[in-house]
């Protein structure tokens, strides 16, 4: 079973101007001491149309994590407006918080985000080029969408095969580059980290 359970995520500084950093206060519980750090990420979905516009706002290691209940605030800068398609700037999108352990994602928390002009005038007649200074970001904090994935917490590749009959599906979704210990060399960046650049 999952060694880490997310108990609560409180969205801080919400609603706020578009340019403000994102702040999530995460409370989680860990069943036993984790030998490795957890990696948390905030991903801003720039456009519903394509993952191409996903931006990883920040990624942070959290550790050491002894058994017990813990909390921390994850703050990340607002998305780079240059990477957001202009047509998608205003309206509803999604921000994701993911957590991975030993390179395997085990929880994904998603929130709807509504970006809207505070000014009624602008709201009715939005400028062609979005005016990010006037936009307000409102995260639908009361309705998180949580997806949990089964991962192999012991982390060793052999054991992963061993636990096949537990739940092969999530493991099957892992690309081979993800198997621990076989991380790509530094120069070789996986395809989808393009969106981070």
């Amino acid at each position, binding site marked *: *079973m999952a060694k880490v359970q997310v108990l609560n995520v409180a969205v*801080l500084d919400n*609603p706020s101007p578009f340019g403000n950093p994102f702040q999530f206060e995460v409370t989680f519980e860990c069943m036993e001491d984790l030998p490795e*750090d957890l990696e948390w990420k905030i991903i801003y979905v720039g456009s519903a149309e394509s993952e191409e516009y996903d931006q990883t706002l920040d990624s942070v290691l959290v550790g050491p994590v002894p058994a017990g209940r813990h909390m921390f*605030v994850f703050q990340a800068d607002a998305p780079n407006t240059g990477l957001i398609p202009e047509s998608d700037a205003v309206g509803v999108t999604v921000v994701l918080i993911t957590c991975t352990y030993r390179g395997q994602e085990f929880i994904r928390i998603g929130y709807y985000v509504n970006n809207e002009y505070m000014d009624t005038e602008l709201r009715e007649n939005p400028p062609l080029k979005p005016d990010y200074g006037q936009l307000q970001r409102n995260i639908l904090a*009361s309705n*998180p969408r949580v997806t949990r994935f089964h991962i192999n917490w012991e982390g060793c590749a052999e054991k992963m095969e061993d636990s096949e009959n537990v739940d092969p599906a999530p493991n099957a979704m892992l690309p081979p580059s993800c198997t621990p210990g076989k991380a790509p060399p530094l120069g070789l960046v996986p395809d989808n980290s393009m969106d*981070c650049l």
Partner: protein
Amino acid sequence: MKLLKPSWVNHNGKPIFSVDIHPDGTKFATGGQGEDSGKVVIWNMAPVLREEDEKNENIPKLLCQMDNHLACVNCVRWSNNGLYLASGGDDKLVMVWKRAAFIGPSTVFGSSSKLANVEQWRCVMILRNHTGDVMDVAWSPHDVWLASCSVDNTIAIWNARKFPEIVMTLKGHTGLVKGLTWDPVGKYIASQADDHSLKVWRTMDWQLETNITKPFSECGGTTHVLRLSWSPDGQYLVSAHAMNNSGPTAQIIERDGWKTNMDFVGHRKAVTVVKFNPKIFKKKQKNGSTPKPSCPYCCCAVGSKDRSLSVWLTSLKRPLVVIHDLFDKSIMDITWTLNGLGLLVCSMDGTVAFLDFSQDELGDPLNEEEKNAIHQNIYGKSLAITMGSQLSSTIIDNPEMLKYQQERQGNQNPNGAQASGPEHQTPKLTNVLNGESLEDIRKNLLKKQVETRTADGRRRITPLCIAQLDTGDFSPALFNSVPILPGSSASTQLTPQISSDSSTANSLVYMYVTSYFPALSQPMEPMKALDSRFTERSKATPGVTSVPLTIGITPLDRVKDSSSVKEPKVKDETSSDSEDKIMAKPLSMAKRKGEMEGAEVVEKRKKGRPRKDSFIRTHVMSVRIKDKTKEPSRLITPVAVLKLPTPSIQKSFSTQVSTDAIAYLEVENEVSVVSGARLSQLKWSRDGREWDTLLTSRITIATGSSDIVAVACEDRTLSVFTTCGRRLIPSIMLPAPLAALHCSGHFVMVLMASATLSVWDVQKQTALVKNESLNPILSGTDATVSQSFLTRQGVAVVSLSNGKTYCFNSSLETWNLIADKQDSLVQCADFRNCVSSQDALGSMGPLALTQGRNLSAGRLASRLSSTPHHLQQGMTLAFLEKQLASALILLSASEYRHWLLIYARFLVNEGYELRLRELCQDLLGPVHKSSSSSWEPTVLGLRKRDLLTEVLPVIGQNLRFQRLFTEYQDQLELLRLK
């Protein structure tokens, strides 16, 4: 007989594989398949038992559900004491659950279900050993062991006192092991497997006692489970699926010679589960008829793949009742209520059924005493150490006793009726974090949390530990926590009134969404498109190396970094409960000293987590002594002149001193040179108040207590200051260099390199111990001093590396052995039945400190359950008396009281009347004053008669001692009136 199928007990149509009623009868657990995981659900029993409770919407039906098992749960079993629930599943794991102590319902974060968990059960232990699905789990009598069996053909015996320790893995089955049952006497465990065999194993040496194959040789086809059962009198073992003349049966195996002459026949398909009623019955005596002595008999329920259930009495040739077509699919598990009159059955079809019998149908259940008498008769020992819960039939001939018993009952009932009753007593959790409220912490969390950069430039946050796992103390405030809204947030009209009430959350969402999209045409489209993003895992979850974004550190971050670096001290305070504090402290010390090693840090972690400030101090002390013993050349040798290693002089160091608020002592040696004299500085700070003073010699050790600060210098002088920095006495010239120095209250203890000990009371300016040699405890061994400390009462305690701990008693002028890790008595004493949950608090003190917080007492006790009872009794008695005496000599009042109550409970349980009487007599003292009496009315500052008032209710729990109870109750009353 009444039959009920509570439709609300279900796993949304998924199969239910196991059901078990809690020993207190107020709840039951089911285990089976969940949505995409295994599922364990805890249900309220009351709505099953009473229709009015079922209809009453204020009475919760579902108490808690746990989705932690990755795959189907095959078995759920409550421990006999009701504190734990064990579950085993297809994910090869056994999980042990315990109820968490905090109040208030909570939902699973992010789950849409409105059903809140009324009770919080949390997984306290995951037992990993099996390499295949776990099919059955079983707690041994008295919860000494937990057994689990698996399709990996093995049975694991776990030490239930020390999870996840495995006592033994029983190998021998050549097929999937699908059922387990313990002998109620504790001598055997039986298992049934697909390999056409039933095996009985001895608990004494875990070897095979017998292998029964004949009744199973014909068994074809497989059943999902083979849950066998042992009768409550221990005389019969009944198997699941067996065959006789090509008909399915449940085989009866006699304990005596493991004979297989009888069976339960009649089911048309394989028997999946057999469960004996926990009660032994005797014939119901009709009014008027002459009471004939009738043979006691047992009652047994049998469930089968043919979907029918039969209930048998061993006194009848035919089943008492057979119920067909109770379910649509195979019966999977059966559980009886403790009173023996109710029965829950679950099926693969995902439903459960409840059968309610009357005493007319089953007979009169024997009370515990009669049951014990039967056991005593057959096995020569009483199995149950009754805590007086089933003594109802004994005549109570004293009104006080009656009142007391009634009060007890009264206290027990609300436990079941309203689940929220007892929790109110649990300590408020907001104090967990050193008095800082959780709200305060949350407000400053971002600023306070420690953030560092790893070598490759990544941000790394050290999470703030807000609760430890094993304490059971969790903050209720955390659940349903509300974001802290900035003051300005109310300015926008769209800001919803965010409520912590989960029941309103859904309607809120609705309002929220509608107000957002009043007239927009496009929103629904992207919503759908976005929805998939919530659940889809990113195609690649990049490893640690693949995040280029973080390389660019913004200037803002840098500022944050530097500010967080300044704050480690603050952080330490806020998280004194967390383990990383223990890590952080020595590490920071190590940096300054530059000579401590990582290995020591690791070792300290093993010692356990000091939770109280006072522990922290001794902790630090022990480190220092270790530090000194590092040089092997200076090791103590068993010669006449002993020599203890002395600490080396450091340029500067700091110590944390435990007082009400934590104080810090900082030492800087040779801080300045004034006209040739080298001055050393001692700095003390607490809560922003601080003072410093200068000494002319280099400081080797500095320590303090809530009242004083003591400093030893290189020139063999010892200086003592008040916590305001005023010197109390002129420098004390020590006869030898100092090895260790401790303060506690007004007491100062010095351990000199010449292996002599002195203790002074600096307030009264007297010596309690004068240059006492450690020779008596060190000579003849090659042990070294591993730890020393001073109790609040000024008793010096010295622990040696051979596991023995001594204290020096100044009135006897002797060294007294108070703890010995190798003492076999400690390991064999079994008094756990006498420890009540609230006792845990009283057990903290110097004695517990020397013996280790999780006293290994009783570690081997479980092994001895098959050795003569009286031997173990004797060992336990000796151990408890030793503990009492040790607490007395350590002047540790709270521990004395703690052990006294355990001792009294033990005497009551085991029936030591003479000792009990002596104890009471000493506590009561002479009723009539006489000048010649040497009786002291107090012990360690506790009034003996108050102690007696506490002990008497314990005595009252056993009706055997009602005379004794009455006698002393009356005398106490008499004294009170005087």
